[in-house]
C-alpha cells in the first residue's frame, strides 16, 4: 500500500511529527510505501534546519530528512503556513528580501494542491493532528 501522511502538530510541542515518523517506519518495515508527507499548520517547523534538539531528545528534523532520503519520501512543507511562521527557502528569502533561509532539500515548499494530489494518488491518507 501507498500512503500520504498529513501532519498538523509542531515538532517541539506536540507528539504529531513523532507519531507520524513512527507510523512511517513501521509501514516501510512491512513493505508499504510512503509517497508523501505533507507538513501543514505548526508541523511546518519540522523543515527548519536551524533547530537544535536538546541532548537526549529526538532530532525530528534529522530523522525525517534521513528517512525521506533513504525511502524517497516527498517531504512537502505547506508554503502559506510556513511563510507566516518565519520558515523560508532560498527562493522565498530572495523574493521577500529576508536575510537568511532555513528550509533546504529534501524538504520542499508547495501548496495545498499537493495535499489533495497526494491524498488522491495514494491508496490511503492519514492525518496526524495537533
Amino acid at each position, binding site marked *: 500500500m501507498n500512503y500520504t501522511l*498529513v501532519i*498538523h502538530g509542531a515538532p517541539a510541542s506536540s507528539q504529531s511529527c513523532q507519531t507520524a515518523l513512527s507510523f512511517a517506519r513501521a509501514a516501510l518495515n512491512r513493505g508499504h510505501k510512503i509517497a508523501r508527507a505533507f507538513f501543514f*499548520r505548526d508541523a511546518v517547523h519540522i523543515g527548519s534546519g536551524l533547530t537544535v534538539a536538546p541532548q537526549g531528545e529526538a532530532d525530528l528534523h534529522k530523522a525525517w530528512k534521513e528517512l525521506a532520503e533513504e525511502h524517497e519520501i516527498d517531504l512537502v512543507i505547506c508554503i502559506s503556513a510556513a511563510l507566516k511562521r518565519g520558515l523560508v527557502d532560498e527562493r522565498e528569502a530572495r523574493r521577500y528580501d529576508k536575510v537568511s533561509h532555513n528550509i533546504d532539500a529534501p524538504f520542499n515548499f508547495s*501548496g495545498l*494542491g499537493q*495535499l*489533495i494530489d497526494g491524498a*488522491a494518488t495514494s491508496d490511503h*491518507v492519514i492525518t496526524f*493532528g495537533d
Partner: protein
Amino acid sequence: MKFCFISSHAPYGSTLARDGIESLLVAASYDMNATVLFMGDGVLQLVAEQEPGELPQKNTGAMLQALEMYGIENILVCREDMLVFGLQAEQLLLKAKQVSRSDIPGIIREQDRVLNF
C-alpha cells in the same frame, strides 16, 4: 473521487477551521466530489451573522458561503451536536443536511478519502 472533510473545531480559537475550509476549496477546484461534515464544536462554524472583524480574523462563515460557487453541495451537519449548542436550522448561514451521529460511520465508509480538521 469522493473526499470527505470532517470539521470538528470552533471557528476562531485556532486556524483549524479556516485551514480545513481552504483545503476543501482546493479539493473542489481539483474536481473532487467533496463532502464536508461539521460535527462537535465544528457546528459553530455554521452560525449565521458572524462578526470576527474585531478579533481581527477572516470571516470563515463568509468563506463557507462560497461553497456553492465551488460546486460543493454535500454539506452535512450532525444533528445531536447542533442540539448541544441549542442551534436551529434557521440559525445556520447555509442549508446543511442534518445527519444523526449514528449515520456518520456509514457516511465515512462511502468515501474514498477522509481528511480531519
